[in-house]
């Protein structure tokens, strides 16, 4: 995945066939989590905040639903990736970059939570968890490229 052009809030990336398949794989894993990554408060009054914890869970569920809709539209759209001699081109707006970053991070963090919030990932690859670890790293790779593109344009 390589940025080949950026202007007026439009970004054009070049993908190899393999990269396209990996991005599709990562997006198909969404959503990987199913609740808040942390409580609303660690030290607040639990009774007072109980209703607010529910509101947080509802807000996150609503966002996952909306992002699922966007992911389905993204993956299902004909011509999203245009083929050329050296692979594929993908055109993204700034807004699409932002939600793609959130979706990829949701997959990365969601898998991490499912793995038991380990401090290190490498040892898990040796204990039969290699698929989740690889997917997390794929998400990180695409996140890094998207962030670099946003940073270079600003």
């Amino acid at each position, binding site marked *: 995945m390589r940025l080949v052009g950026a202007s007026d809030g439009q970004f054009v990336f070049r993908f190899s066939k393999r990269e396209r398949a990996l991005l599709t794989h990562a997006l198909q894993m969404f959503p990987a989590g199913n609740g808040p990554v942390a409580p*609303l408060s660690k030290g607040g009054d639990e009774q007072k905040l109980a209703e607010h914890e529910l509101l947080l869970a509802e807000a*996150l569920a609503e966002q996952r639903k909306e992002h699922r809709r966007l992911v389905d539209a993204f993956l299902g759209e004909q011509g999203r990736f245009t083929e050329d001699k050296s692979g594929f081109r993908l055109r993204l707006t700034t807004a699409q970059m932002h939600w793609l970053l959130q979706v990829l991070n949701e997959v990365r963090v969601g898998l991490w939570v499912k793995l038991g919030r380990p401090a290190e990932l490498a040892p898990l690859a040796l204990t039969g968890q290699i698929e989740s670890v690889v997917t997390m790293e794929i998400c*990180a790779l695409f996140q890094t490229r998207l962030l670099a593109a946003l940073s270079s344009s600003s």
Partner: protein
Amino acid sequence: MVGVIENSAGCSYLHRVATIIELPDVVREEETKSKENLDPGYLVICWDDPVNLMDYVTHAFQIVFGWKKEKAEFHMLEVHEKGSSVLARESMERAEFYVHELQKHQLHATMEPAR
């Protein structure tokens, strides 16, 4: 003030009318609440974790708070090096809003009563 007043014969003439405006008394309260009685609000705190990418955390702070990159990076590094960073001190409603937005980016953010 200059006014036009008409007499009984139908003639009018200029007449100076003095107006006295009574201003209400202003009672100034020296103190409404002691500092101890003011609501201390809530701190919005982001905690370190081993999963979120440093550049992504900076990006999320910029989006959620509208900060410039330098300020967002300062807080990201504080999270990374010290284990947490206080991002804001707000009313309960506002702190809750920020925690929602940060958690929508999968950041480990909470709101804690300010002391």
